[in-house]
């Protein structure tokens, strides 16, 4: 899945005929001032300014300001841009017009196993989260589009009446069209509001998750994807992603501050079991990582260096199941080079390394790992006869 920030998300909705407030994404107060001169709406309505970053709880951080005039929006932009929040610097602000409204509704389209589901509620904002049973659903098979009647039935079920029935049904229909045509996995507007000036339904914000795998058929997806877990990617994460995009096979890396058990396992499935085992044994994960699909040794070496650079780690888990075709000797070669580099950089002091793996050239690979003992590494090597996650038990239990 690929999360898209509000600006490009609203852009996609607008493309499929959904009303959205006027908005602009700017990188400086000066840019905003210039746009403000050229576009009347900045002066005619009250404005909202929000930090345009993949950040959770922006309200609490003071990164959302409402009820502003243009000057106020410029001041807010100036104040927000350049602010450091954790690992990320705010570099963009989205300024949009405030839409005077009384009623708030909810509409979403989500991917399901059989196709998709359109969700509608006649309440919106935080109210919908505490009244989830008021959300009504229309289930659609893949390849099937909702009829006007289906949609009207849905919104009536959700409690819409009168002229709003047709309007909300149309809104939901456009949401589905956008979802279907843009290879979305999740689209949510909360709240949908009834604009007092013209009685149109308007999307006040947009949560947009697109299917990154479908990028090849969307040449107009010219925006970057954002991190999906409430914070921006770190420098190390971005570097590993850059390597990942260049290679056959894959390398993945997510930092978790404060942990002491570093993960360097192979295979998407096994890596989660290794992480589970660490948590189950009371260890603290320092990261999530994996390599798979027989990546080149240099890519595994980069990943290893990042793992060795994690602060405060005591154990490194080089785990893996019995590979189908990943060359154990070759990928371990990359890990060994990474370990050697880290050691010569003064890292890995007091760090224990735990290895378990099988697959093509397993004997050669494991022997090469074992030989690291002679170079002064605190390394413990196990083969396929040791159950998969037992090295985690040994690591978490080991003292000193």
């Amino acid at each position, binding site marked *: 899945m690929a999360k898209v920030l509000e600006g490009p998300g609203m852009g996609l909705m607008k493309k499929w005929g959904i009303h959205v407030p006027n908005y602009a994404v700017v990188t400086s107060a000066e840019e905003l001032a210039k746009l403000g001169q050229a576009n009347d709406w900045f002066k005619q309505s009250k404005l909202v300014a929000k930090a345009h970053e993949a950040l959770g709880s922006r309200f609490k951080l003071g990164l959302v300001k409402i009820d502003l005039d243009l000057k106020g929006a410029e001041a807010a932009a100036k104040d927000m841009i350049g602010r450091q929040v954790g690992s990320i610097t705010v570099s963009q602000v989205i300024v949009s017009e405030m839409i005077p409204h009384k009623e708030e509704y909810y509409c979403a389209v989500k*991917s399901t196993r059989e196709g998709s589901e359109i969700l509608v509620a006649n309440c919106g904002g935080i109210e919908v989260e505490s009244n989830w049973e008021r959300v009504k659903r229309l289930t659609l098979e893949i390849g099937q589009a909702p009829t006007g009647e289906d949609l009207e039935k849905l919104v009536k079920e959700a409690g819409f009446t009168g002229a709003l029935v047709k309007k909300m049904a149309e809104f939901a229909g456009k949401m589905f069209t956008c979802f279907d045509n843009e290879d979305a*996995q999740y689209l949510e507007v909360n709240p949908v509001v009834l604009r007092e000036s013209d009685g149109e339904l308007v999307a006040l914000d947009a949560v947009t998750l697109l299917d990154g795998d479908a990028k*090849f058929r969307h040449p107009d997806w010219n925006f970057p994807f954002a991190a999906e*877990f*409430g914070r921006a990617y770190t420098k190390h994460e971005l570097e590993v992603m850059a390597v990942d995009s260049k290679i056959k096979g894959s390398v993945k890396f997510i930092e978790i501050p404060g942990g002491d058990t570093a993960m360097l396992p192979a295979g998407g*499935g096994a890596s989660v079991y290794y992480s589970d085992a660490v948590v189950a044994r009371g260890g603290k*994960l320092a990261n999530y990582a994996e390599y798979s699909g027989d990546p080149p040794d240099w890519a595994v070496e980069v990943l290893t260096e990042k793992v060795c650079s994690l602060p405060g780690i005591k154990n490194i888990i080089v785990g893996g199941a019995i*590979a189908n075709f990943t060359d154990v000797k070759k990928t371990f070669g990359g890990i060994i080079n990474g370990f050697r580099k880290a050691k010569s950089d003064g890292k890995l002091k007091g760090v224990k390394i735990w290895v378990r793996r099988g697959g093509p050239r397993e004997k050669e690979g494991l022997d090469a790992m074992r030989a690291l003992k002679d170079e002064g590494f605190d390394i413990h090597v196990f083969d396929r006869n040791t159950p998969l996650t037992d090295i985690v038990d040994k690591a978490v239990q080991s003292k000193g």
Partner: protein
Amino acid sequence: MSILANKDTRVVIQGGAAGVNAARRMAEFCYLIKKPLNVEAFVYPPDAGKSNEIPYGSGLIAIPVYKTIAEATKHHPQINTSLVYIGADRAMKGGMEALDDAHIKVVSMITEGVPEKDAKLLGAHARKLGKVFNGPSSIGIISAGACRLGVIGGAFDNLVLSKLYREGSFGVITKSGGLSNEIIWICSQFADGITTAIGIGGDAYPGTDYVSYLEMFERDPQTKAVVIVGEMGGDLEERAAEWYGAKKRRIKLIAVVSGFCQESLPKGMKFGHAGAKEGMKGEGSARSKSDALKKAGALVPATFGALGPAIKETYQELLKSGQVKEVIEPATLPKLPKSVEEAMKADEVMVAPLIRTTISDDRGDEPCYDGYPASELINKGYEIPHVIGLLWDKRLISKQEAEIVKRIMMLSADHGPCVSGAYATILAACAGIGLSQSVAAGMIMIGPRFGGAVTDAGRYFKHAVDNKMSVDEFLAYMKKNVGPVPGIGHRVKSLRNPDKRVKELVGYVKSLNIKTPCLDFALEVEKVTSAKKDNLILNVDGTMAAVLVDIGFPIDSLNGFFILSRTIGLIGHWVDQKRQDSRLIRLFDYLVNYAAPKRREVPPLK
């Protein structure tokens, strides 16, 4: 018995290199179980009409490549299964093509990164047709002792270690390709092994679910228990639990689910908004899945590590109840023939090499000339003459010698368009012949009458010096045994019209403080011969020869100096003609003396 893939499965593989690799793995398995290769055809339009060679045992099988599925099944009507290895952007089209072919009942897609919508459309289409669409991102399907589809099962050694040559009692369904081998291995160590193992793919919405396979396993009497390896997200595990709990099932169910770590990850590390919101009821989490499975009566070990013992426990119960019997392993199994490379690595064979080299080695990261890496030579200031010294004489020549070689090369790089070699190259260029052929045409002119005297001149001057001959003795010897002295004489140059190149080279070499016995001797010979006739001077070939012998180059290499340097000129002439877009040459009549008989009547045939 087995499900999905059995002894009657015949396969078409859609795709290029990755598909060929899979076919090789599949051939290894077929060899292990002593069955013919089950891959009948490939579909890969760029290679249509060709065939792919698949090693089977110590032999090779040629499998034809077709443009379309229809062509493949027309020629191989037994095909009933397709494996899709086509790139993500074309995978749906390929998958649909296979599903729409009446012969094909199972399509397993190995391709990763297929858009979710495409996978769903394929899944729905297959269900409509009553077929199976497995994947995408599937590692494959393997039925012990019967059939392998894809690379699942890993390398040959692992197939043997995991006892995949014969049937066991456990079915396996995994989302993770990487873990499939692990589970198969565990089933073979803690129990009697597997019936069929299926990789359903790790995508959010794979084409099939656990339930469809559980039903197939339930109907397969050989399968006594099924191991499910699940993950957080989606609801496939909950559905499997629901199916298992719905009524009394013949098969036992063992399941592990990953993703418990999510509970202790920092807040906000949850992946995806939909899951988070919908997850308010706890659906999709590892815990909810595990709980559902437990509640339905499945055996759910607390950790992955406890899976082996859980399988063992189940197997013991099956043994006790008489549902399964202890397996007797076959006494011998086929061994995969080693490649020559592997056998040599293991010190098992000795191969008499076909050729031998003593000058260069390019097996490392760069070529070494007589042991010296090329880049190091460059970085330490060595030049082309040193490379010539290393490759032609296996020695690192001195700076002074290199300078002599360099001058020889420069002086003999080109002698104008009229000499045989250049003329031949130009003629070829004008006829539209390519660079290498035109240069070769010039090069084959090098012989006794054109530049090819260097080696012979060197040989005889050296012979004279080695045998301490006087000039008279030498000339008498040559007259009696050889003929004209190679290296002496010029067509246009003479005493009165001396060759500047010879003067230059002799002057330079004599200015150095080195011994030049051959050159000195050649100059003495010139004195005598040029006195007889003034164009019998020491020519460039003879001078080069004498100097190169004096600085120690082997006799047999000497013509090489001429060939190498003159190639520079020949290339120049070809490029020159090309640049001018030269017209085709035809020799003018007046340049030919037609000495043939005059035109006459042809006599009747007798």
